[in-house]
């Protein structure tokens, strides 16, 4: 089998199919131009997007939030709509808006009260290409507004902290003053303690004992006096009896004398005291009567004296009784005094106990005061530190607190568009599909029109055939690789067209990729009954590789095993190689070996599988 003949045959086959030829070259150009136009300019991601707005708060805070949005995207304000929340939600649900923001009523007041506010954003997440950008943009806007509000809040907090610092300084003085006061109290307590300790309760007890003794003596004296008084009283009673007798006697005498006087008077009355006979007599009688009268007066005087004596005795008796009562009262008083002395003793004992307790309490209080003093130093220390910390805290810029980390992107490669990233993936992707489709369908066609069997009749070695077929189809596709290389360089400036080394590197990558996928396409063809099967099988192989190439979804977000498979795929290896040139200007030929290995392995698989073809 002659490689040149195979290449000529395949080349003529490809290039004589007009439509295939046009598609072969036009499609990649169209794809590159269209995608270059779509992704080839730097733009904010949602600048062309219209967002619905339902501002139910219409406040400074909502305005602050919206000011960060309107500069980057179009905002359609539906706040005047009745039930605008439902309205914008419906607009999103029915696909007329990609997203809508609802600022709730009480947004600002809620923030001022320190409550987190729930800002609803309805996102049409069926638009998978725009919804993540909108969500990210909204998050950024919320974060930006949050930072502004946060900075304002922190500024006010700083002011309050500064006030607190000043108050702490005052508190520091108060603490020092309190400590001094405590020290003074402690000194006074010490004095009190000393005073209490110096109290000699034994003197008091001795005095009390002496008083008690005196009272006992007084009681004894009073008992003796009472006995004496009782004795006097009894004697006075005797005297009174005698006086009473004397009085009765005197009264009898007085009565006798009265009778005698009456007899004399009677006797005189019987006499004519005018008669001189009786004159003497009458005189005598008068004299007698006068004597009797005098005697009677004397007796009456005596009676009176006896009576006075008896009254004196009564009075003396009363005085004795009074003395006795006084003595009784004095004894009671003495007993009471003794009780009081006892109470006093108890009081003194209590006082001693109280003193002990007081001294213990004073000691405790002194300890407490010592602790207070110690704590006051600690408190001073704490307050001083707190003051310093407050100064440190409030010296910080509120903005730096809200956003302690400021992102300073250093774009090492200048402004890049998505297409710059896309292009190193796009070239291999186009060639992958072209290689798969053309190699698989062309071989299926040969299989179905019998020419392949005719080739097998020549008993060509299956490995030789597979290898030459792979090379042949790959050579036919090389102009496509050249075309794509030139477009990437000349139209999109992905690399310098005059840098032969780089151009060759890119071309070599694409050539190896073509070899690998042509080999895979040959295997697909062997197992396909029709061109449609081969086409679909190529899609089944190509599409997963496309999605696993990192173009659609970053490797970093894939499960580890899938990421490993994706990175090991020939498409990804080619993408890596081209990225090393087009993005990093540092060609890394690591993937070349892997691509070549794929080409060899699938060529061998094709050779082994060739026996299946009947």
């Amino acid at each position, binding site marked *: *089998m*002659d490689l040149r*003949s*195979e290449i*000529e*045959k395949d080349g*003529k*086959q490809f290039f*004589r*199919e007009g439509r295939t030829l046009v598609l072969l070259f036009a499609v990649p150009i169209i794809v590159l131009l269209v995608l270059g136009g779509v992704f080839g300019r730097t733009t904010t991601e949602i600048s062309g997007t219209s967002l619905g707005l339902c501002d139910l708060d219409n406040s400074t805070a909502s305005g602050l939030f919206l000011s960060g949005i309107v500069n980057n995207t179009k905002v359609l304000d539906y706040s005047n709509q009745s039930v605008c929340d439902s309205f914008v939600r419906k607009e999103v649900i029915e696909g007329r808006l990609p997203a809508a923001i609802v600022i709730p009523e009480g947004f600002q007041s809620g923030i001022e009260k320190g409550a987190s506010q729930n800002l609803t954003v309805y996102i049409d997440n069926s638009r998978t290409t725009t919804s993540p950008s909108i969500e990210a943009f909204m998050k950024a806007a919320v974060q930006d507004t949050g930072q502004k509000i946060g900075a304002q809040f922190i500024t006010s907090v700083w002011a309050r902290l500064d006030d607190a610092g000043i108050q702490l300084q005052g508190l520091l003085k108060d603490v020092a003053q309190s400590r001094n006061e405590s020290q003074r109290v402690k000194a006074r307590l010490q004095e009190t303690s000393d005073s209490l300790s110096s109290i000699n309760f034994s003197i008091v007890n001795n005095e009390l004992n002496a008083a008690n003794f005196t009272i006992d003596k007084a009681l004894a004296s009073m008992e003796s006096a009472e006995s004496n008084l009782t004795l006097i009283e009894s004697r006075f009673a005797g005297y009174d009896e005698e006086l009473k007798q004397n009085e009765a006697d005197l009264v009898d005498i007085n009565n006798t004398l009265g009778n005698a006087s009456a007899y004399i008077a009677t006797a005189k009355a019987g006499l004519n005291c005018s008669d001189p006979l009786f004159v003497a007599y009458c005189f005598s009688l008068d004299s007698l009567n006068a004597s009797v009268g005098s005697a009677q007066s004397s007796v009456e005087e005596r009676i009176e004296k006896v009576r006075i004596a008896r009254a004196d005795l009564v009075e003396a008796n009363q005085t004795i009784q009074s003395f006795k009562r006084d003595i009784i009262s004095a004894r009671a008083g003495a007993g009471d005094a003794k009780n009081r002395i006892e109470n006093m003793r108890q009081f003194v004992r209590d006082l001693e106990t109280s003193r002990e307790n007081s001294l213990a309490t004073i000691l405790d209080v002194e300890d407490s005061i010592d602790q207070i003093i110690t704590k006051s130093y600690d408190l001073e220390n704490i307050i001083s530190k707190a003051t310093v910390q407050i100064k440190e805290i409030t010296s910080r810029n509120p903005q730096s607190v809200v956003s302690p980390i400021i992102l300073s992107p250093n774009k090492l490669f200048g402004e890049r568009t998505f297409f710059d990233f896309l292009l190193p993936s796009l070239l291999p992707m186009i060639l992958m599909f072209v290689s798969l489709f053309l190699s698989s369908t062309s071989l299926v066609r040969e299989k179905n*029109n*019998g*020419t392949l*069997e*005719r*080739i*097998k*009749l*020549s*008993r*060509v070695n299956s490995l030789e055939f597979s290898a030459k077929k792979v090379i042949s189809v790959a050579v036919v596709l090389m102009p496509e690789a050249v075309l794509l290389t030139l477009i990437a360089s000349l139209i999109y400036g992905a690399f310098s067209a005059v840098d032969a080394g780089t151009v060759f590197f890119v071309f070599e990558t694409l050539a190896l990729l073509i070899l690998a996928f042509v080999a895979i396409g040959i295997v697909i063809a062997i197992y396909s009954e029709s061109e449609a099967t081969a086409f679909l099988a190529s899609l089944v192989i190509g599409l997963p590789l496309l999605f696993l190439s990192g173009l659609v979804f970053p490797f970093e977000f894939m499960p580890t095993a899938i990421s490993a498979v994706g990175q090991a795929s020939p498409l990804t290896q080619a993408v890596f190689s081209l990225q090393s040139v087009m993005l990093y200007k540092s060609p890394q030929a690591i993937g070349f070996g892997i691509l070549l290995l794929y080409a060899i392995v699938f060529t061998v698989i094709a050779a082994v599988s060739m026996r299946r073809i*009947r």
Partner: protein
Amino acid sequence: MAAVVEAENLVKIFPGKVTLYNFSLNIEEGGIFGLLGPNGAGKSTFIRILTGLESADSGKINLYGKPLSKESAKKIGVAPQENCVYPLLTCVENLLYFGSLYGVTGKKAMDNAVRLLNELGLADKKNTRAGFLSGGMKRRLNLACALMHEPKLLILDEPTTGLDPTTRRNMWGVVNKISKENKATVILTTHYMEEAEALCYRIAFVNNGQVVAEGSTEELKKMAGKQIARMVSVPGDYESLGPLLKKIPGIESITVTEAGIVVESDEVSSKVSEITRIFTKKGEKIVELSVSKPSLEDVFLKITGAQLKKEAVKGGLKK
């Protein structure tokens, strides 16, 4: 003459199907050898084994006295039944490509191509794409492609299938010419008995994976030996007619085929009136009746039918 192909007890079994079973055949050098058999008889499997596309499970096959090898296979040229050419390549490009597969390149390839195009009447189509050729021209180009490396053994797989009668007869001439001018041994497989009769010096009938008969045209016809009357009737209840026809004196065999009922006798023409009477009696309306000496096709039908229903012979009825 030396044997070109010697096949002995070839067995080839595909999953669920025995394709060849004790297939033995010798083909001598020179001339056109016909290989006939119904679909699925095993002809194609034998050809595939002979060309190296398949290997036999057991048995032996030699080509030019040697076991098959890559080198010996290159002595074979195959013109498949389908037109296996590249429609987007010109006639000469097709020829040069298929020549290159056998190492025929350069001037020799071009000389061969031009010669073959001339021989097959395609000289004026040299630079015409194969896709633009008529059916007959494509078939000739297909044949030319098989001859580019000047094979000593040419296998033509039903070369006239699908061609109109005129083109087919032209093709017969081409095949004859090729056989003579290229001095190649030709193995021809065909369903057209007259084609085999017209072209082949020897014919092998293949059925159920075996060669059931082999010989020259005359030898094969002698195997049939008798005159044959074939009738097609409506409604065609041949099962009930068979025993009645068998009772006619001189009737040797009755064979029911897809093409009607075949009555065999030394003098079948004298039995026609009696045969038609039985048909009428049974309510069968004869729509076609032919009386002939046995053709190759009759032999084919007889042999393959007998082979298919051997058990039925006991009852005197062959289907």
